[in-house]
């Protein structure tokens, strides 16, 4: 047990801290689209500094960094008030999935451009009839020679409005058990037959979209990890997604907590013992999440594999985030609910946290089944 940073970790931290100080992107634009491109530019800048995908092996342009070094990376970003770079679907989800399941040719073609932000990626998993029950995907890819022809619909596809490629889960065989008939593709978003429509979220902004496929042709060389193996490939993507949300966003929660704390102190609100008690409970939850991320990284490193722990971190994150947002609204007072206030935005945005990346109910199922080993009903 040693919770101090190792010499390597310290050296990296100091190096990166100094680098951010020189390259800080400043404060975010308020428009959602401008904000996206601003975060994409930040990815390019990080890449020029060699920080875009620390956890990737060096042969693909990363640093072969340990998950722990990656946690230091997120901690330093948060500490400096710098954003998480855009295109995380590429760097944290598509990249690792292609590294695990892709062919040599696919790795060479897709990985390096992700880091340069030449390509933006989106995740086409959810459908109107297949959300929590991902295996029920109905979008169909029919084989025609060395191509597949895709028809169907995806929904809640974040960042599809900017995307060049999509991680697409489709059905290719209706005659076998649901999760055995799935195939995972890389879809070129410039292919004919794709319609993208932004969906307006309860914040008023549009981060996510719906996608319609009308006889969209995908070359068979774009299958990731074999026809019929889509379920397992999708699980790889989801495991990386939850770890990233849990560790990456979890570490960031501290910033929000600090903003709330500064407000409370500046207005003497912590003199109210009930407010003080609730705030401190949230501080403990935030610290517990940070520490649990570090502990799980240590354990995964020792074991040599990522497990279902990402689900636990994601549960802690969404729970603490929602509580903190509710607490802020209650204690800051009526000004917090004005339309343009940052408090209102966080409050509204936090409602997505228990849904995106697997709902909290689904994650509790995962903890029950795979961590506690309870018998399953479904």
């Amino acid at each position: 047990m040693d919770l101090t940073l190792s010499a390597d970790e310290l050296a990296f931290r100091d190096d990166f801290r100094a680098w951010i100080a020189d390259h800080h992107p400043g404060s975010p634009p308020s428009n959602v689209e401008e904000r996206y491109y601003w975060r994409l530019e930040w990815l390019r800048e990080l890449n020029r500094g060699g920080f875009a995908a620390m956890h990737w092996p060096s042969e693909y342009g990363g640093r072969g960094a340990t998950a722990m070094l990656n946690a230091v990376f997120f901690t330093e970003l948060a500490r400096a008030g710098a954003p998480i770079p855009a295109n995380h679907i590429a760097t944290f989800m598509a990249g690792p999935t292609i590294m695990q399941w892709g062919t040599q040719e696919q790795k060479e073609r897709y990985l390096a451009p992700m880091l340069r932000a030449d390509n933006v990626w989106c995740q086409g998993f959810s459908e109107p009839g297949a959300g929590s029950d991902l295996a029920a995907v109905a979008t169909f890819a029919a084989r025609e020679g060395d191509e597949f022809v895709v028809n169907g619909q995806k929904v809640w596809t974040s960042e599809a409005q900017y995307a060049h490629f999509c991680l697409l889960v489709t059905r290719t065989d209706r005659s076998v058990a649901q999760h055995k008939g799935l195939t995972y593709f890389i879809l070129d978003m410039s292919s004919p037959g794709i319609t993208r429509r932004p969906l307006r979220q309860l914040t008023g902004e549009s981060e996510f979209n719906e996608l319609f496929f009308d006889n969209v042709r995908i070359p068979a060389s774009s299958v990731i990890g074999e026809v019929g193996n889509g379920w397992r490939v999708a699980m790889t993507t989801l495991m990386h997604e939850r770890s990233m949300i849990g560790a990456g966003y979890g570490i960031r929660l501290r910033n929000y907590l600090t903003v709330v704390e500064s407000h409370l102190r500046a207005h003497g609100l912590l003199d109210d013992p009930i407010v003080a008690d609730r705030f401190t409970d949230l501080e403990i939850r935030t610290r517990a999440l940070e520490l649990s991320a570090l502990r799980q990284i240590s354990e995964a490193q020792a074991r040599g594999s990522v497990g279902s722990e990402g689900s636990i971190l994601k549960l802690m994150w969404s729970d603490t985030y929602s509580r903190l947002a509710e607490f802020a609204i209650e204690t800051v007072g009526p000004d917090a609910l004005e339309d343009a206030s940052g408090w209102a935005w966080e409050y509204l945005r936090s409602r997505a946290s228990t849904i995106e990346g697997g709902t909290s109910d689904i994650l509790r199922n995962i903890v029950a089944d795979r961590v506690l080993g309870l018998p399953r009903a479904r």
Partner: protein
Amino acid sequence: MRFMLSDEQSAIQDMAREVLAAESTFDRVRSAGEERQYDSELWALQRSMGWPGVGVPQRWGGQGLGLVELSVIAEECGYACSSTPLLGTILAATSLVSAASSEQCERYLPSLAAGEVRGAVALTADSTPVPDAGEAGLIVVLEGSGGRVSLQPAQPVETIDPTLRYGRVVDPSAGEPLNQSPIAYDSTLVVVSAHQLGLAQRALDLSVAYTSVREQFGVPVATFQAVSHRLAQAHVDLTAARSLVYHAAWAVQVGDSEASASAARAKAWLAEASRTVTGSAIHAHGGIGFTWEANLHWLFKRATMLGPYLGGARQHRSRLLDMLGTAQTTSHETDHS
């Protein structure tokens, strides 16, 4: 950074779990509780293995291990809900190691480390029944960052947890003064929190096992989400608990700047989580859970008793807030300099 037990620490944990699984069965816990007497056979065994002196330096007859190892032992004793004066004795020894003069150490530690004298730790400003004080030969009374060591017997108190002998300090001003040492209090908070973690972990493990085999409506009850989600949430809360406890153990052991805050967080969280999880386990067992024979109540009762001991959740949150305020001022100062 490596936030997990070392191989040696895991070996201590495995050994303790194995010994207690054999020698501190619930039958033994129950008969100790029913007779309102410690399990003397188990206490003799714990003494022979040197457990009372795990955290005592070797020159005073102990094993000289750190707070992490001590927490591992305390957690396992909680897991077994064992009925011996070990908790109070290691708390007293630990606080003396950091707050006693070397002359006092010389005088008191060897007999505590050998388990010849049983100890307990109380807070002055507190009438909460003190575990193991009922039959303790030595009581450390902490006050602020100082305290006293007293040989005056406490007033025994019968509580809802008859597996430990509780007591109240009669005269907090009796005995000799100790040195100032915040570590004494922080260490005791960590050890008690670790013990509470063990109680809760056992309750969860029992619930997982029981609900996996108990059938209703033709299926194991764990297949109902109302049941499995309750247990999944308990696991999430104990994940947080484990992170807080072992971070605090490490931080206090190495004198990290976050040590006191971390100990306060651990105690605040466990004071509530330990009671909630053990209580939840009773519910998950149905009617059986409410019986004397089901044994869950021993865990629940001890978790309840230890909640307010050495300060409850609200008290530690309030302490933590003061520490955070100070930390904030300090870091602003350094930012400007």
